[in-house]
């Protein structure tokens, strides 16, 4: 095969082996309380100004979601499963609902499918805005902290109207969505999304075309296409390294097949490309929302009625969706009980974490924030 990524001879990727460390090397703990590390610790060994060894140490916000899910039935699992990423709560519930629907054999009403797409895309923008705000403040750009946090309110207001909650929506349920939207929602949504898109274009002037940002992020932490595939990275990290892989296109779920959008791919694989992909994704999200509002049936049921404590068969499912950070999969093992026998949440942050030692090793210490947060990493989600 022409694009073979596994050469026959065995090689270990840099940063993934344990090394012997000598006397001139200093150990530096970044986190877990440091605001820049975000509830995780990175144990860095530096030789002068250069990072020679990186050991990420997540787990400070491990809640045992997978164990909790084994004790609760399929419906009562919903509110706690969204906790790992409350900013992207619709997208983390999406694979769970798709999986349970496959287990129980439920058919989702047409209007609910569109409402799901709108909620998921609004949520994706809310998440990316929050991530972008932190990336801005990481790099000392406080305007880029204020703007996204302010613009995020527009979408949070919309989600508030839709679901009744600002961040923890618990909106997706197996068999549809929890409730219909208020009567004038379509007009308000269209207006806010159009304004939001106008605001997004201004980010280029202040942030993405800013020479200071470019000089700090260009050519730092370069992840080649081959290594991105080998390490199994996903989402914006993968697409910034030139691999066109978006679950919404590759394995469309619900009505994404009918939506008019494109995936964003950049070839550079550096921090700048990784930080630009989510921003470009938000434009596509706006397109999807407008398209969904246009194509959505104007009335109809949004939820199928479920029996109390429904039971799955003796089987297993694996479903995945594209979340704000990348592919988010859920493996549900059912053994005819009202609760899952085993629920494995495969989160993109955890999958992208493996790229961190690979990218940071060999970088200058000052580039650490620019590389680390460009991985679109959410510590709470990685810990589950």
């Amino acid at each position: 095969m022409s694009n073979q990524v596994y050469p026959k001879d065995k090689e270990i990727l840099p940063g993934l082996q344990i090394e012997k460390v000598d006397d001139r090397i200093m150990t530096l703990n970044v986190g877990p309380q440091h605001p820049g590390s975000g509830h995780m610790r990175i144990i860095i060994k530096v030789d002068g100004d250069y990072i020679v060894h990186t050991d990420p140490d997540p787990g400070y916000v491990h809640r045992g979601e997978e164990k909790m899910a084994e004790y609760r039935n399929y419906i009562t699992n919903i509110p706690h499963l969204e906790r790992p990423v409350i900013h992207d709560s619709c997208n983390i519930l999406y694979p769970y609902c798709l999986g349970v629907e496959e287990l129980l054999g439920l058919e989702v009403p047409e209007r609910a499918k569109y409402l799901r797409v709108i909620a998921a895309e609004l949520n994706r923008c809310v998440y990316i805005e929050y991530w972008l705000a932190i990336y801005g403040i990481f790099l000392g750009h406080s305007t880029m902290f204020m703007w996204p946090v302010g613009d995020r309110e527009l979408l949070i207001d919309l989600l508030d109207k839709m679901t009744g909650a600002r961040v923890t929506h618990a909106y997706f349920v197996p068999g549809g969505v929890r409730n219909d939207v208020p009567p004038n929602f379509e007009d308000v949504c269209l207006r806010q999304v159009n304004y939001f898109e106008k605001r997004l274009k201004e980010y280029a002037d202040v942030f993405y075309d800013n020479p200071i940002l470019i000089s700090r992020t260009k050519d730092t932490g370069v992840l080649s296409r081959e290594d991105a595939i080998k390490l199994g990275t996903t989402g914006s990290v993968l697409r910034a390294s030139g691999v066109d892989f978006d679950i919404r296109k590759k394995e469309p779920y619900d009505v994404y097949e009918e939506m008019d959008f494109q995936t964003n791919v950049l070839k550079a694989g550096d921090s700048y490309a990784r930080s630009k992909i989510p921003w470009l994704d938000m434009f596509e999200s706006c397109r999807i929302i407008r398209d969904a509002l246009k194509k959505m049936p104007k009335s109809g049921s949004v939820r199928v009625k479920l029996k109390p404590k429904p039971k799955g068969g003796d089987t297993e499912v694996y479903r995945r969706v594209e979340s704000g950070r990348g592919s988010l999969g859920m493996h549900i093992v059912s053994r005819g009980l009202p609760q899952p026998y085993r629920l494995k949440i495969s989160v993109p942050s955890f999958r992208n974490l493996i790229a961190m030692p690979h990218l940071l090793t060999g970088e200058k210490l000052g580039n650490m924030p620019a590389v680390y947060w460009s991985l679109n990493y959410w510590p709470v989600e990685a810990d589950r």
Partner: protein
Amino acid sequence: MSSTDSTEIAKTDDSSVASDLDKSLSDSISKKFSNVEIAYVKPDRIRVNVKKEDIIDVASFIRDELNFDHAESVSGVDYPEDKQIEVVYHLGSYTDTSLDKKILALATRTPREDNPRPGNDSTKLPSLRDVFPSVSFHERECFEMLGVYFDGHPDNRRLLLPEDWADMPPLRKDFRIKGR
């Protein structure tokens, strides 16, 4: 893998709706390896059960000949009544566009002991880290959560649990949450 090992695994036979590519993938595995069991072939989802001695050979074959290039997830499932723990690798492909939608689940089982001593008992599996580097952290998580030691993994340390965790691996079924 013998038939008794797979009693918990789906018996649903959806092969009528599975595509030709799904079938040809599963056929090529069963043709190459005689003692491999194809648990099911659903649309875009294939599950292969192997013995733990064969898993590296089968995984290398899946990587080199079938073009699956990364692991999406590694889940461990505890079956106390069989005295076994199952580890399922969900493999996907980025390079081969015909495999975009496919997930190949490669499953194997290892004996479990009632009084686990993680790392020092018979609950061991060969690590797939040299075949798929992407399983590295997933296998570390599986080791601490279920006590499955991965032979050949250079870094079987704790990842998510606290350093002073002294109880049994928490995702085993005999670890109970208080009050539940």
